[in-house]
């Protein structure tokens, strides 16, 4: 198990002081809160039929990426992420603050690899028609690939674009590895702040879910939700997820750093833990989540749970078993409203937890099966869960600052 605990000295307290969200529902915090209150869901079951996706809500990228030239250099996932990162910096009151940005840590959880579908198809058709020699692919790729496409494919170029557009340059680290990358990005950012290795960090992720090449990767494993939409808890026994487009970024900083600049916190990020179960036997995921829960510390009263449960099986059934063994806490599955945003799902969960705590209420349940229950109690702490569709388990404890 990976733990943020430091034995060196009293760890520094870490606050979430900035949140940036752009998704299929909306962009910005008020619009998201409103969409959640209305139990809104934005799905498209036509454009990628039979696959269902959650398409990005209309967004004016100019608001955060002023130069059209910069926008042109990016593919959709980078534009979404750079946009959400800008919102987070705005939210923290740090946009344009060169002194802080020049020493701000950045950890991005990224996928990447957007392909030129037409070029791929042309190569494959050449080969299928038997009129292509072994080197024909060279000619196609040399002539047809846009030179700058590579930079839109490289995983670390979301961070690179955020540095260019927003000036975050203290450090630039990109973690890869699907859902777990999102967990570890937040875990390492917190560990660095808690240990005094850093004062302030920008952490987050983004995905463009409206991509056939991305759908293909998950189609190999039969993970795509098909034909018609269903909420996360209603997908068993077959299971599956609908990819979502979106980005979620957080500004996390030490309490001392935040107070010194008069920043107002949304919530405290108290702990992040993660593990890798090799998932050999039924019950392995449940057991791993149980261990993470214990290491997170016993929950106090008024605890809620926000989970990034994917809907993929058996992971979601095992997570459900874990949740059922810890009853009495209202649960919210972000996948129902946002779709599965992969690396972004865990930062998104933390963002919604911090937002809920700062607004003194958990957003409504959105689950016809009744597994998610309504609550009128004001949450004091929210546990965020991320169990990957194939690998990776993580949890975070987010607490209210009174």
């Amino acid at each position, binding site marked *: 198990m990976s733990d943020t605990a430091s034995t060196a000295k009293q760890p520094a307290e870490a606050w979430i002081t900035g949140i940036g969200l752009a998704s299929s529902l909306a962009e910005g915090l008020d619009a998201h809160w409103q969409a959640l209150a209305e139990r809104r869901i934005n799905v498209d079951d036509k454009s990628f039929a039979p696959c269902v996706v959650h398409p990005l809500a209309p967004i004016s990228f100019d608001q955060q990426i002023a130069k059209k030239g910069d926008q042109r250099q990016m593919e959709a996932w980078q534009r979404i992420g750079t946009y959400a990162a800008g919102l987070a910096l705005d939210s923290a009151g740090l946009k344009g603050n060169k002194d802080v940005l020049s020493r701000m840590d950045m950890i991005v959880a990224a996928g990447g690899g957007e392909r030129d579908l037409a070029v791929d198809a042309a190569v494959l058709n050449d080969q299928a028609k038997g009129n292509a020699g072994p080197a024909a692919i060279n000619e196609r790729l040399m002539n047809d690939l846009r030179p700058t496409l590579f930079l839109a494919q490289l995983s670390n170029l979301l961070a690179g674009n955020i540095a*260019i557009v927003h000036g975050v340059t203290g450090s630039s680290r990109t973690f890869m590895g699907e859902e777990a990358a999102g967990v570890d990005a937040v875990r390492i950012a917190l560990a660095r702040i808690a240990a005094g290795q850093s004062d302030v960090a920008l952490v987050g992720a983004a995905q463009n879910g409206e991509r056939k090449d991305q759908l293909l990767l998950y189609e190999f494993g039969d993970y795509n939700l098909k034909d018609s939409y269903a909420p996360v808890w209603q997908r068993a026994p077959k299971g599956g997820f609908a990819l979502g487009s979106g980005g979620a970024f957080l500004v996390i900083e030490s309490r001392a750093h935040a107070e010194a600049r008069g920043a107002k916190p949304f919530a405290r990020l108290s702990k992040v833990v993660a593990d890798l179960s090799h998932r050999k036997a039924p019950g392995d995921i449940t057991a791993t989540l149980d261990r993470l829960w214990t290491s997170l510390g016993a929950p106090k009263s008024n605890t809620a749970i926000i989970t990034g449960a994917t809907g993929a099986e058996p992971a979601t059934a095992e997570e459900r078993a874990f949740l059922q063994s810890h009853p009495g806490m209202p649960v919210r599955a972000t996948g129902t409203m946002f779709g599965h945003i992969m690396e972004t799902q865990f930062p998104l969960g933390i963002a919604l937890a911090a937002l809920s705590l700062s607004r003194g209420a958990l957003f409504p349940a959105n689950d016809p099966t009744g597994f998610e229950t309504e609550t009128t109690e004001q949450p004091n702490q929210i546990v965020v869960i991320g169990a990957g569709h194939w690998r990776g388990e993580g949890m975070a404890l987010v607490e209210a600052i009174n």
Partner: protein
Amino acid sequence: MTATRDKFGRPIVAVTGMGVITSLGAGLAENWSKLTAGQSGLSTITRFPTDGLKTTVAGTVDFVAVDPFTSTDLGERLADLATEEAISQSGIGSKGDFPGPLFLAVAPVETEWTAREQLAKAVGGDAEIDYDALLRVGGGGRFAHFHRRFLFGSVADHLAETFGTKGSPISLSTACASGASAIQLGVEAIRRGETDAALCVATDGSVNAEALIRFSLLSALSTQNDPPQAASKPFAKNRDGFVMAEGAGALVLENLDAAKARGAKILGVIVGCGELADSFHRTRSSPDGKPIIGCVRNALADAGLAPEQIDYINAHGTGTPENDKMEYLGISTVFGDRTPSIPVSSNKSMVGHTLSAAGAVEAIFSLLTLEHQRIPPTINYDVPDPAIPFDVVPNKARDARVTAVMSNSFGFGGQNASLILTREPLSH
């Protein structure tokens, strides 16, 4: 027993195991002997047809067979081999039970042509092939192995299971600085007291047609294909680009006290790590060199060393006109009048640019430099560039007294990372 700390009160991070594989060969011994003999591992590409390509040279690792070839499978196999050597040298833990986390620098994974071609065959008939057709045949479990293979986390998942590392393994990319970043993450975890040991691995098996073409389209690669051994010319006036290469490096990092307590041999110490991102451009460095200068200074500050205390620089030295010029600007600004008298050599002249693996491969070569007190040369240095008056240790290895090495790594996307390594813990 009092804990040994550095001058900032942090645990000291020792290296107790190393493993390396490059186009020069497998293992520390073969690599070191060829590196100090000034041999090149670069060759004309035979793995795939190179018709119509401007660049036909690379540092492929052809003596490790992967069938069918994918870059991800090769990268994974190279990582396995380097890690086996490192853990064996370290003697830490037991087989399949490494007592600490994994930090893996790995090229971004994506579904490769082998997969698309198999799918296209499954579509069959005269049907037009597009992604809708591929999606129609992709499911049903027949190609489930492609999902496992082409997940970004797949190589780390394999290594974590094989070597029994603890916790959630981190796969990272900071482009051509990735190997250095993996080491930095390990150093930080040990300094935080989270763990007494960390496995830092960096690997790259990227030489396939599309990857080569991508770099070629950015005009990053040398086109001086003949003879291939002379293609990589860091710091020379006639340099014209880097040469793609494959390899892996693995390091076992340990808290010095824990390593000594179990009687491990200390191979070296990572005394400082620095990083700083560049916001100027996606592929070019800021013309004022400030991010590189800041990165180098951050590494010195993290180590608590003055520039005067560095006596060898293992350069990033890719052999692109841009990189080498900017690296000179950065180093000469920090090291001032002393610059011409510091040996600065580039391993890439011999092994090419091992991309995601380079930072770790070159950190290992830096540690071997400290162990053997011998500096590997920069080969193919026949036409000095008057704009870069480094002592590049031209063409022949040199015996020298070396106590502290700086190893630099810079990458696309404004990535800069520097490590400082010593043979012994610094006294303070």
